[in-house]
């Protein structure tokens, strides 16, 4: 059976992470995604990753770029020129979706507002992914990855007990906005199937991520009581913490939800008497005295590897998980058996393993269909096959600087 988005063409103007991550998912699940980069404003991710600049086509070899842009085609087109804009509108006329994550005023300034694109294709689904949204007093404020999670409220709730608010370990809002993009596009396509009409979608990254702490907002609006960060603990459950294991910087998370799981933990760590100790047996008392339990648990974990401790605890019926590192994730037997990593060959970058499409839809599976496009790799397909331009016309565009076969390397030198 064909993929869920088979037959859907997406014009992708996004760069860096949130947008490209999302459009890559669209590509994995069947859409024909055309990534548009200007010869003089191409995707910064191509320049990241310590690639030596003296190798040919170094800008096609960034692993960070190649992970987030596989399953796409690549087109070089300068949107800043009138002719480039006209060509983009022609491409939109034969496409279903356009996605952009520019500053809020850029698309309007390029003459590519929703109204302009809709005039070229009334069935278009036009998606913007700004940090703050396209309205509101802060719409033009600059917001990058680490800003978004602060604005969403998440950082104020994260941190060690008694400590400062703490950032996440990555630009968390980006992949969440990219994931939201898939749902938004699927929903807009469904709506178009039913009404015949295209639509406009706006994913404000801080609002999408703000949903992930919504219960705290509801709580605060009811009770007006701030909740300080509580580290790895839980408001009600205990024990619920992270414990040191044998080895350098190795850890295990243990999170008991029931008295029975706690009793299983006590048995597994060789302290069965704790399960009937009045200080710990039932949850309310155990929560009160959880600090006293930590050293008893850690005495057991700290002399075991985190994998071994996890297996022993799981076998006993205790929710426990090793804090896996990146090398451990890539070697993880479970992820391996599930096919979470998949080898792909890229003509300029070689063969290595990438993440497989994350969700299993067995009847209509996703697929890492194409390696990430080299810069301008599919110019001929888009200009010639899709838009019917002659080789002479394409050559004229190239000599006018509206397209190119190589990026301007001075931009991200």
């Amino acid at each position, binding site marked *: 059976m064909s993929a*869920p988005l088979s037959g859907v063409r997406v014009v992708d103007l996004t760069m860096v992470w949130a947008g490209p991550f999302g459009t890559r998912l669209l590509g994995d699940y069947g859409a024909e995604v055309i990534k548009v980069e200007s010869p003089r404003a191409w995707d910064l991710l191509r320049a990241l*990753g*310590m690639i030596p600049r003296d190798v040919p086509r170094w800008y096609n070899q960034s*692993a960070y770029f190649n*992970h987030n842009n596989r399953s796409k085609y690549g087109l070089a087109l300068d949107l800043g020129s009138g002719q480039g804009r006209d060509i983009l509108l022609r491409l939109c006329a034969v496409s279903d979706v356009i996605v952009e994550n520019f500053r809020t005023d850029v698309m309007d300034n390029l003459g590519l507002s929703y109204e302009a694109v809709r005039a070229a294709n009334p069935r278009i689904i036009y998606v913007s992914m700004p940090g703050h949204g396209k*309205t*509101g007093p802060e*719409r033009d404020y*600059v*917001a990058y990855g*680490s800003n978004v999670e*602060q604005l969403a*409220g*998440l*950082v*104020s709730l*994260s941190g060690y007990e008694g400590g400062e608010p*703490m*950032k996440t*370990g*990555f630009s968390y809002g980006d*992949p969440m906005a990219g994931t*939201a993009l*898939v*749902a938004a596009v*699927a*929903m807009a396509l*469904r709506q178009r*199937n*039913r009404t015949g009409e295209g*639509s406009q979608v706006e994913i404000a990254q801080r*609002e*999408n991520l*703000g949903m992930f702490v*919504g*219960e705290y*907002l*509801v*709580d605060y*609006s*009811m009770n007006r009581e701030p909740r300080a960060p509580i580290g790895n603990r839980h408001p009600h459950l205990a024990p619920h913490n992270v414990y040191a294991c044998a080895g350098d*910087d190795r*850890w295990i*998370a243990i999170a008991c939800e029931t008295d029975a799981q706690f009793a299983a933990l006590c048995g597994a760590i060789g302290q069965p008497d704790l399960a009937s100790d009045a200080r710990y047996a039932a949850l309310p008392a155990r929560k009160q005295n959880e600090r006293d339990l930590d050293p008893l648990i850690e005495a057991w974990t700290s002399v075991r590897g985190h994998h071994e401790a996890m297996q022993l605890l799981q076998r006993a019926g205790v*929710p426990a*998980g090793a*804090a*896996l590192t990146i090398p451990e994730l*890539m070697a993880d037997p*479970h*992820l391996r*058996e*599930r096919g*979470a990593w998949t080898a792909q060959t890229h003509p300029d*970058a070689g063969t290595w393993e*990438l993440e497989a499409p994350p*969700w*299993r*839809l067995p*009847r209509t599976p996703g697929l890492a269909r194409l390696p990430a496009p080299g810069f301008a790799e599919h110019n001929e397909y888009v200009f010639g096959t899709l838009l019917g331009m002659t080789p002479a016309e394409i050559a004229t565009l190239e000599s006018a600087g509206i397209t190119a076969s190589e990026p301007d390397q001075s931009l991200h030198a």
Partner: protein
Amino acid sequence: MPQPLAGLRVLELGTFVSAPYCGKLFAGYGAEVLKVEPPGGDPSRAHGPFKDGVPNPETSALFLYLNTGKKSVELDLRTPAGLDAFIRLAATADVVVENFRPADLRALGVTYASLRAANPHLTFVSITAFGQDGPYANYLANNLVCFAMGGQLFITGTQEGGPLKNGGYQADYQGGLNGFAAATLAVLAAERDGEGQHVDVSVQQCMAPILEAGIPYYSYMGRWGGLRRGNHMASYIGIYPCADGHVGVHVMPRNWKPFTEAIGHPEWQQDPRFATAQARNIHNDDLFAELYTWAATETKREAYDRAGRMRAPISFVHTMADLLESPHLNERGYLTAIEHPVAGDAVYPGPPWWMGADSWTQGRAPLLGEHTDAVLREVAGMSAAEIARLNSGVPA
């Protein structure tokens, strides 16, 4: 324009956060969501924080937030009559969303294969820690365990403080959003082909690939730093205490000029320690010290608005009070007061993304079993006598 998910019926067999968040999104964008709760209700009803701190299954902020716009059907699936009622509901549904451990769902007698026989159109979405198969499939898991096994725990916090989870239930929310994205794709395919499928979403598998450049750099180049960086990726990307809270800076090379101007240090553009990106990396410690000194003199809202006008990337750590008072979020209509008969008024965020006027609606969360009778009668087509025989703690 009708809501994007109008006309869909979703049966949610979900507890706590992941499947309920997925169900909440379905309801918000227009689907009819029937939440099947066990006797006594979704365990999140027993988790606070509660209105005024008093435990009550109808006033848990966690439950109220995650279950907006749904109908509650209280059913004991461990009884034959309860299971039969569930199967009759599933025969009328477009989507089932569940988050049981695979072995636990099988023990209840609910399988995709059996539901499919009566309803080949059905999209059956499982959101679980580790997916439906593989060596960890039946490991016991929850938010903290997923956070560890998905790799996000190890990279969060400081080197000395040890791995730190983020606030709230972040692994579970990721599962809910990923489940929703996968479900909407599957619905699109089901409406095209007239055939459903069993969608398998593993939270671990969704979390592991998104550690910024971590997987790409390790897989392609064998590079892995292995350090937790606390609140600073570098001096110019991180969080600093200010006079009334915390401000965050995230300065890319092209932002340096407006940034120095917004913080009152335009002379740093000529300062050899800071004039270039390379120099700022070499003199990272100097810049740290300077930024701590600067930030201490600022108040958060003022610094944020000044920087925003000057297009300098400074934000501030928003508390819940800051969110409620945010002029931006209020003007955008992101904060909605919803009245609940037991919990009273509260403010709810949404929509997560905008798809046109009236594309998103947010009704209050249901009381436990509030719609049991009506749903069993009108949707499952059961008679009053059959409903009475259910004997599953359904309110009179």
